[in-house]
C-alpha cells in the first residue's frame, strides 16, 4: 500500500508489463495485502521508519513476499478450476497487476509533491494511531470523506476542507493537497476503476465456477461500460466540472493513464488475448465508445439515462457491424482478385502466349 516507486507504463502495453516478473511479484503481494487486510497493522509498523525511501520499499517487498506467497496460493486454490489453473493464476496476476497499478496511481495522486515526507516518531505516543496509518492513507481517507461534500461544493478545495472537518481534522490540512481538485477527481476515478475491476473479476469467477453463462463480447462490453458509467450517477450534476478538471494540462497524463487502464481491464476480462495490431485497435475503439457515451450521459435527462444506454447499444452494434463488414470486404476482395487472375490466364491462353515450345 505504500508503493511509492513509480511504475509508469508509458503506453498501455500491459502485455509487456505482465511479462516483467518484478511487477508480478509486487502485484501479488499488494493484492494479497489488500484482500487479506490482516497485514495492515503489520504494514503500518514497517512503514513507520520512512515512507518513501525506495530501499525500505525493497526491504518491505522482500519481507512481504514470503508471507504473501502463502496467501496467493490459498487464493488461487479457491478460484482455479481444474482445466485452466495456469490461466487463472495469470488472471490473478493480471488483476493484481492492474489493481497494483491503480493503487499506486490512486496513491500517487494523493501524494503531495513534497520533498521528503516524513513520519519520524520520537516519543509521539499521542499520535501513534495516525502514524501507523501512513500519510498517503490519511490523504486517501480525507479525499474519500470529501466525496460526500462534492454535490454541495463541487470538485474543489472547499469539498476537501469539509471532508477533513468531517474526519475531525482542521481545514488547514487541505494544504497537503497542492493540486486539490485534480487529486480529488483522480482519486474518485481510481476508486471507480478498482470497483469495476472487482466486479469484473467476480463475474469472471462466476463463469469459471460454472455458475453463470459466458456472455458474448458485445454484450460484455456493453455491461461493463454501463456499470462503470453508472458509478457517476450520484455526481452527475457536477461531472462536467470534473471532466474539465481532468482536461487541465497537469492532470492529462494521470487521467489518460486511468482511462487506458480502464479500457485495458475491460478488454482483458472480455477475453482479448491478441498480440498484434488488434490490441491497439480494440482499445482505441472502446476508448472512443466510452468517451462518447460519457459525454451523452452528462447531458442526458431521460429517466434512468435510458437514452445513454440506447446510444451505447447503437455504438457497440456499429462496431460489430464494422467488424463483420471488414471480414466480408476482405473475402470479397480475395475472391475478386482470384477471379481477375483467372481471367488473365484465360486471355493468355486464348492469345497463345502460354504455349511452351
Amino acid at each position, binding site marked *: 500500500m505504500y508503493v511509492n516507486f513509480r511504475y509508469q507504463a508509458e503506453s498501455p502495453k500491459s502485455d509487456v508489463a505482465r511479462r516483467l516478473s518484478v511487477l508480478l511479484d509486487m502485484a501479488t503481494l499488494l493484492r494479497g495485502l489488500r484482500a487479506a487486510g490482516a497485514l495492515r497493522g503489520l504494514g503500518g509498523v514497517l512503514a513507520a521508519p520512512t515512507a518513501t525511501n525506495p530501499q525500505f520499499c525493497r526491504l518491505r517487498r522482500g519481507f512481504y513476499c514470503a508471507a504473501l506467497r502463502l496467501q496467493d496460493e490459498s487464493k488461487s486454490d479457491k478460484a482455479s478450476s481444474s482445466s485452466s489453473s495456469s490461466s487463472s493464476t495469470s488472471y490473478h496476476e493480471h488483476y493484481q497487476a492492474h489493481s497494483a497499478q491503480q493503487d499506486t496511481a490512486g496513491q500517487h495522486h494523493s501524494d*503531495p509533491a*513534497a*520533498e*521528503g*515526507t*516524513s*513520519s*519520524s516518531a*520520537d*516519543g*509521539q505516543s*499521542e*499520535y501513534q494511531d*495516525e502514524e501507523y496509518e501512513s*500519510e498517503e492513507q*490519511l490523504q486517501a481517507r480525507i479525499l474519500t470523506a470529501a466525496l460526500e461534500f462534492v454535490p454541495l461544493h463541487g470538485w474543489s*478545495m*472547499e469539498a476537501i*476542507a469539509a471532508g*477533513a472537518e468531517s*474526519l*475531525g*481534522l*482542521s*481545514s*488547514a*490540512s*487541505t*494544504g*497537503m493537497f497542492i493540486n486539490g481538485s485534480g487529486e480529488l477527481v483522480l482519486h474518485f476515478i481510481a476508486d471507480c476503476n478498482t470497483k469495476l475491476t472487482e466486479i469484473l473479476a467476480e463475474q469472471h469467477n462466476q463463469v469459471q465456477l460454472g455458475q453463470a453463462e459466458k456472455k458474448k463480447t458485445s454484450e460484455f462490453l456493453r455491461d461493463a461500460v454501463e456499470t462503470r458509467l453508472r458509478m457517476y450517477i450520484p455526481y452527475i450534476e457536477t461531472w462536467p466540472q470534473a471532466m474539465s478538471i481532468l482536461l487541465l494540462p497537469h492532470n492529462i497524463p494521470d487521467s489518460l493513464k486511468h482511462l487506458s487502464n480502464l479500457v485495458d481491464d475491460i478488454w482483458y476480462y472480455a477475453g482479448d488475448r491478441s498480440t498484434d495490431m488488434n490490441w491497439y485497435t480494440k482499445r482505441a475503439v472502446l476508448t472512443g465508445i466510452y468517451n462518447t457515451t460519457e459525454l451523452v450521459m452528462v447531458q442526458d435527462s431521460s429517466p434512468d439515462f435510458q437514452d445513454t444506454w440506447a446510444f451505447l447499444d447503437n455504438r457497440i452494434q456499429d462496431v460489430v457491424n464494422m467488424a463483420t463488414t471488414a471480414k466480408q470486404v476482405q473475402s470479397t476482395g480475395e475472391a475478386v482478385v482470384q477471379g481477375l487472375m483467372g481471367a488473365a490466364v484465360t486471355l493468355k491462353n486464348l492469345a497463345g502466349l502460354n504455349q511452351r515450345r
Partner: protein
Amino acid sequence: MAANIHCSIINRKRNFLSHCVINMAASVRTFVRSLSRKNACFTAVLRRSECRGFTGAAEDRSTHFGFETVSEAEKASKVYKVFENVAQKYDVMNDAMSLGIHRLWKDALLHVMHPQPGARLLDVAGGTGDIAFRFLDYIRSQQEKQQRRAMSLGQTPSWRDISDGYPAGGGAPESAVVVCDINKEMLKVGRQRADSRGVTTGLSWVVGDAEELPFNDDQFDLYSIAFGIRNVTRIDQALKEALRVLKPGGRFLCLEFSKVTNPVLERLYDAYSFQVIPVLGEVIAGDWKSYQYLVESIRKFPDQEEFKGLMEDAGFFCVQYFNLTGGVVALHSGFKL
C-alpha cells in the same frame, strides 16, 4: 523539591522534557492560563525572570546572540531590548532593507497558507501585524468571491438568507487571528496600525512567549511565525509549543531567512548584509547595533534542511520548504496529524 512534587501533581499531557526548568515553567504556566488574557501581559514578563531565577541551569547553558556567546538567560532580555528599540521604525526599516520585497514574501506565505473560511490563525512574533492584516484581507476577499459566485448562479438572496448572514452568536466559527508577541512595544505599534486601518473585529493582541504560549491545547487551525523564530532562545521548545496549540490537522508555517543556494548570490547577499544594512539602521533608525544583531542572527540560524529536521523531531508531518528569492528566505510548512 516542593516544586517538583507540585509539578507531578499537575497533569501535563505533552511534557516531554525532563529538565527542571521546564517543570517549573509548567507549574507556572498552568497558573498563568487560569488568569484572563489581559492579566497575562504582567505575569508573562515576571514569569520568565522567576523561572530563570529559581534554577541556575539556564544561566549555565550558553547560546548565541548574533556572533556573541551569551547565556540563555541573557539572550531573551537582550532580544527584548533590541526590538524595544526598533519597534517604532520597524516597518520603515523592513521596506528599506529588503527594498520592499518583504511584502512579496509575506504575500507568498499567505498564498501557501490558503486559509479556508472559518480558520483561526495564531501569528506568533507577529508584532506589527503584517501577517494578521494580510490574513484578514485574504479571508474577506474569499468570502466576497464566494458571495459573488452564489450571486452569479442566478440566485438572488432572499431576505432570510441575508439576515442569516448577519453575525449571529453561536453561528459558524468566524475566522479570527490572534497576534502574540513577547514585546509590548511591537504590539503597541501593531495596535496603532490596526486602528488606522479601521480593523476592529477578528483580531486580538496577546503578550506571550513563543516557548510558553498562554493558550490551551488544540486551539488553532494555523500557526505562523514570520521572521521571529531565529530570535527564540530555544527553537525546539517553540516548535513543541506550536504543536501543542494546533488542532489535529493544523498547519505550522514558518517564514525565515535561510541559506542562499547560489554561491554568487551568496557573496552579494553577504556583502549587502554586512556593509549596507547596519548603515541603513544607523541612518534611518539611529541604531547600528540592533541591525548588526539582525544580520548576525540570520547567519546563526540553521539552514533549510536542518530546520526541517528540527520540525520533524518536534512531531510535524509532511514537512516541506520553499525557497524564496533564491534561498534568502525559506518558507517551511508542517502538519500536526
